[in-house]
């Protein structure tokens, strides 16, 4: 792989990373929002490295004359190139050759531009498993809920209250949950779902709450579901076997929130 293609791959890669971080907010589909500065920095470094390489290649034929004026960098590459002929095939320098595996760096670029991967949705959350129980919190971690209006909360908090709150603070209280729709194999329910991500989409876990008494919108529709928690009928089923249930009074379609993950 010659220097020109190396530089061009770096430019493509850096450009793609800056495309999803600076020019759009697509990066929230893949990583935590707080990761943005690091991504921008990394993308910029890669891009600059590629552009510097390109500029060097561009100037190559003239460098031998203007060498000293260009500073050390160009003197070095200029003299080697003058000796080696064109395109750096026999460069005489260890780092000028990179094995062809570097071509694979084009794949994420193609994926970013052509597939434009959306946030994880119903396909990733399709299995019927219940969400994993959240870490146990002390009983006073859950503040009492307002009685007169619906409280909006994250799915993780709802699941935590449903399973880990000995004072049953959810009982009889209206709550609003936000998530996307995932169908269930059971007839009487569907799931309002949110993926929980701790670092990147590869570690995302589906948080699901079963919605009863409501028509199912199409898969992957973003909805706000208002309703009350349905306490399990028996204590026999351990937490983490079936998703907690919500009897819905209202389902409103909403646009996808800025941060698709919880």
């Amino acid at each position, binding site marked *: 792989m010659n220097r020109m293609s190396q530089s061009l791959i*770096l430019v493509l890669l850096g450009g793609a990373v800056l495309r999803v971080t600076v020019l759009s907010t697509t990066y929230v589909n893949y990583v935590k929002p707080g990761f943005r500065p690091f991504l921008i920095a*990394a993308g910029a470094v*890669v891009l600059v490295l590629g552009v510097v390489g390109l500029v060097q290649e561009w100037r190559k034929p003239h460098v031998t004359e203007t060498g000293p004026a260009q500073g050390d960098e160009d003197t070095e590459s200029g003299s080697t190139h003058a000796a080696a002929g064109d395109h750096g095939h026999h460069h005489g320098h*260890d780092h000028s050759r990179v094995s062809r595996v570097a071509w694979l760096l*084009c794949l994420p670029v193609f994926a970013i531009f*052509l597939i434009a*991967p959306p946030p*994880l949705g119903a396909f990733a959350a399709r299995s019927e498993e219940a969400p994993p129980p959240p870490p146990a919190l002390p009983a006073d971690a859950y503040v009492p809920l307002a009685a007169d209006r619906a409280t909006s909360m994250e799915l993780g908090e709802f699941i935590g209250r449903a399973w880990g709150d000995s004072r049953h603070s959810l009982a009889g209280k209206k709550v609003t949950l936000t998530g996307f729709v995932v169908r269930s194999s059971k007839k009487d329910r569907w799931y309002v779902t949110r993926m929980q991500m*701790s670092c990147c989409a590869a570690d995302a876990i589906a948080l699901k709450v079963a919605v009863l008494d409501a028509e199912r919108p199409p898969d992957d529709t973003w909805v706000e579901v208002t309703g009350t928690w349905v306490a399990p009928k028996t204590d026999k089923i351990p937490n983490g076997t079936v998703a907690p249930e919500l009897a819905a009074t209202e389902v409103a379609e909403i646009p996808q929130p800025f941060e698709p993950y919880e």
Partner: protein
Amino acid sequence: MPDRAVADRTVEIPPDAWGRRSAVAPVMPWVFALVVVLLLLGRFVLTPVLRAPALQTWATVFVAICVQALPFLVFGVLLSAAITAFVPPSFWTRALPRHPYVAVPVAGAAGAVLPGCECASVPVASGLMARGVTPAAALAFLLSSPAINPVVVVATAVAFPQQPLMVVSRFCASLAVAVLVGWVWLRFGRSGWLRVPSRPPASGSSWVAFRDAMRHDLLHAGGFLVVGGLTAATLNVVVPRTWLSSVAGVPVLSVVVLGLLAVLLSICSEADAFVAASLTAFSPTAKLAFLVVGPMVDLKLIALQAGTFGRSFAIRFVPLTFLLGIVTSIAVGEVLL
């Protein structure tokens, strides 16, 4: 360096069958200009077609792994290039104990100061070796740094709020495995197995060496990172996690299975504690194995190591690390958890 070029050619993954070689040097700029135009047009033409949910989910996970690893890789490559270009070799002979058996634990403990995940540690370890650090000591550093650095320790403590011993166990077990592997490599390893990346003395200024080392490492390690990302994303989408729950209760098997899962999922070491905490059906020892093995052996690391140090290295190093990781986790889990 002709022998270096030969070595490079023998470790190329994938082989020529990928067929992208047709892009010949003189037409390269035009080909790339065409590619850029196609990418921009393809967004309008192809994107509406490529809508299969399985493909999209796969692509999301794949891009997420690559995007998430890139800053760490760039950081590691920067550090590695800085080590090769600006730190004189004499520094390492002074900083590390002369006796290799003592240097291994010192280098392993030094892993605690590099805040990064495993993608950063491979280029740094290769830079250390190129600067004359004993390979076994550099390997101990390679294994310990992604698992015992402060960021990972804090993440583990947050993921296991009720189990502070999990943090202690992870720290001790990871350091122990790193040192053990280093010693075993020192005792039984042969120099022919490991391709120490040669860094010729800089021909120009150290800035030229810095830039060239960075470009080379970034492209090389980046390519192998993509190989690992491809495999991990595929397994992530294809293997349903429900398969796991059936073995959760079996004592030793569950530990091995979670160790294997850590290898397959290739989750960044800064996030794996959260995933481990979500595997509630498993025993603490099995979760510990997940946390110990994950940062040391996983698909993207295997690809990176095979690419950086050669295949004959990876074939021996990876199973050794995995085995010691499992055994140490069981031992530490017995004592502490």
